[in-house]
């Protein structure tokens, strides 16, 4: 594991955070042919499956768990965002490079900009989640005398709808910008490869019939109308490959 942690991918992230190596990886001379470099292979970093949150506070987790349960609910079709592990997926994403906006251009000057100019907040995604959740709970405490997580389901839906439409005026955050980011991340957590901590049991893929990381689908190209009958598979494997536990 130590070797993997020291891969150039990790260094790339660390370098960018420190601002030390603008190009992110050591310069190198490549000549004399293409060589396989197994020690540098770009294996993905799997999410830590431990249960506790590393980014969200208890109050923040309360909002996240309540909101995602409304956004992708469990129903007769199967589990929803909670069962897929979306809250811990979000937690890991916000604690990592994505949450820090490592790849983003985050230099000023700052201006509100037009919708056609995209993200112009000086907040990173992690900062925006933190500020938005605090503002939302403050707002619902003021209007309904309760944190969002304590509202009735239909009231939560109505509030999320207002966030989506920019109908809530939050103290520090544009509610529409936050909701757009939040919804995108919830969908990522529901449909990503399970190695990232979401889509547990591949329930998102099973819901719609997506086979996951399978790479050879030649037998189905001309099989018009034939349902795909192999179970989905993750980059990390699938339950059928694991030793049975008594």
């Amino acid at each position: 594991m130590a070797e993997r942690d020291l891969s150039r991918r990790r260094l790339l992230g660390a370098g960018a955070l420190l601002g030390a190596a603008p190009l992110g990886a050591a310069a190198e001379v490549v000549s004399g042919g293409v060589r396989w470099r197994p020690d540098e292979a770009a294996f993905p970093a799997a999410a830590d499956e431990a249960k506790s949150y590393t980014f969200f506070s208890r109050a923040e987790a309360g909002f996240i768990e309540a909101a995602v349960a409304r956004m992708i609910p469990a129903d007769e079709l199967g589990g929803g965002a909670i069962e897929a592990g979306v809250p811990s997926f979000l937690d890991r994403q916000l604690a990592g490079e994505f949450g820090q906006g490592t790849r983003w251009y985050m230099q000023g000057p700052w201006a509100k900009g037009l919708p056609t100019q995209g993200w112009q907040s000086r907040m990173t995604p992690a900062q925006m989640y933190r500020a938005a959740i605090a503002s939302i709970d403050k707002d619902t405490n003021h209007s309904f005398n309760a944190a969002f997580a304590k509202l009735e389901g239909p009231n939560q839906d109505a509030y999320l709808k207002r966030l989506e439409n920019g109908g809530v005026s939050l103290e520090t955050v544009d509610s529409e910008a936050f909701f757009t980011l939040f919804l995108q991340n919830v969908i990522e957590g529901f449909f990503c490869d399970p190695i990232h901590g979401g889509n547990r049991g591949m329930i998102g893929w099973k819901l719609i019939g997506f086979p996951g990381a399978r790479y050879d689908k030649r037998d189905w190209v001309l099989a018009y109308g034939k349902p795909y009958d192999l179970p989905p598979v993750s980059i990390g494997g699938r339950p059928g490959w694991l030793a049975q536990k008594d």
Partner: protein
Amino acid sequence: MAQTLPKVDVVVIGFGWTGAIIAQELTDAGLNVLALERGIWRDTATDFSTTFAQDELRYRFRMELFQRPAHDTCTVRNDVSQTALPMRELGSFLPGSGVGGAGVHWNGQTWRYLPSDLTAKSHNIARYGKAALPPDMTIQDYGVTYAELEPYYDKFEYLCGISGQAGNIGGAIQPGGDPFEGPRTRGYPNPPLDMPWAPTLFGQAASSLGYHPFPQPAANMSRPYVNPLGVQLGPCTYCGFCEKFGCGNYSKSSAQTTILPVLLAKPNFTLKTSCEVLKINLAADGKTATGVTYIDAAGREYFQAADMVILAAYITHNVRLLLVSGIGKPYDPASGQGVIGKNYAYQIDSSVNVFYEDKILNPFVGAGALGMMISDFNGDNFDHSGLGFIGGGYIGVLQTGARPIETHPTPDGTPKWGGAWKKALAKNYLRTATVATQGAVMSYRGNYLDLDPTYRDAYGQPLLRMTFDFKDNEHKMSDYVTARAAEIAKAMGGREISVKARTGSWSVVPYQSTHNTGGAIMGTNPRESALNKYLQSWDVANLFVMGATAFPQQSGYNPTGTLAALAYLSAQAITTQYLKATGKPLVQA
């Protein structure tokens, strides 16, 4: 102070498709070539393995293969009245970073432009009169004809092993191909890919309406292939992870899978990665490049002397390097004078979803260029009289993999989340076909590139500023083509359709296409263009600029086939003409 490195014959800036092509050709001619790539080394076995390449979150949404805005981005605005602001995260387009460039994560849709695309100005004026062009439209002819380019299209298609069905061989129309294409000397090296159900339904519907469907020419292999360099590609397995991903199967043509095994073995070629060129250095006369200044990952600065400089980065970087190096006259939209930054263009797209009640389409069976298309409404393949626009676009069903974070087809009126969304997605995901259109964008006086006055990159150099919007001509054209797409979609016999037209101003937010063009265009004279027909700078004779940077406007087809053909044309001119009289213009101004 920069350390000076021993002179090389040729230094290539950027190592994607065109950098690899030009390096391969010029090393064959015996020149010593050094390529400088600002990104990292990547190869199939190490970086795109099938044990982890199919990771939608990592590659599409965490953008691992793409340019990092933190390092370099551009600022964007729709017109000069707005203040340009940085593209802080990628959206509308996704430039590549690293060896292979955007050619690593492309779909493989490999087109030739129509003969009339290359003469867009003279052709449209001849057919429709000068009044057909709005006063602020600044389209030009390429200065090179389809007939001149044909051998180089052919060369690229055989390098790649394109899978397709020819439509016109030497003037003879071929059944099942695109009857509108320019004449080709021979057919594609490989037969078309096997066609799944949804594109097949599109082809049947298009035929029933009298159109001419054909398989999308694909850089995805329909069978094992050995290219003319002796490099071997494997058959595509339709895994559905082409677009925005590297191919783990050696089945999608890229610099890695077609050129690098040969090029990197040559003693007269060297590649340096994580080395970013900051400027092209000029001699005191301002007419000769002496080499380039670059910085490595440790922050050390070098001057690399060279007899010839090939600028082969993505178009935004090409134009910015020309501007910061003081090469050519910057374009001024107020006067219309100047050439660097002029005629920036793009593409305009739309889509129509067809929802079936009972057809299981398995949309995850895919490849980047797997589909059935029609060219009946592209370019000037249809009579534009009375339509109020010029140009056109393709219409087709491309089945590229329907990866689920990105693809959730639901009928009109479905909410974007909640139980109703979940049910609608579960019902429709396997039963939806998407008819896509991709249309031309003409060039205009007010659409251009220059240096931003405010924002800087990681090295303190100005960012490129992009001033761009869709104009009336493009909206009218796209609406017309979208309406034809909707007619075909209806004829496909589903339960219902949903039309997603492109409305309003260009936005940097939603992904559209990485088909940015122009900014240092080719043409017939230095007053109107930055480059001659051989991609040689009019101002600096030992500088050649590759890529879609040279396109005077963008057609309705994907650009890779044409920019690769132009690179081969340029290489041929360099090796057969320029080397006999180095430092001299190949075309007299």
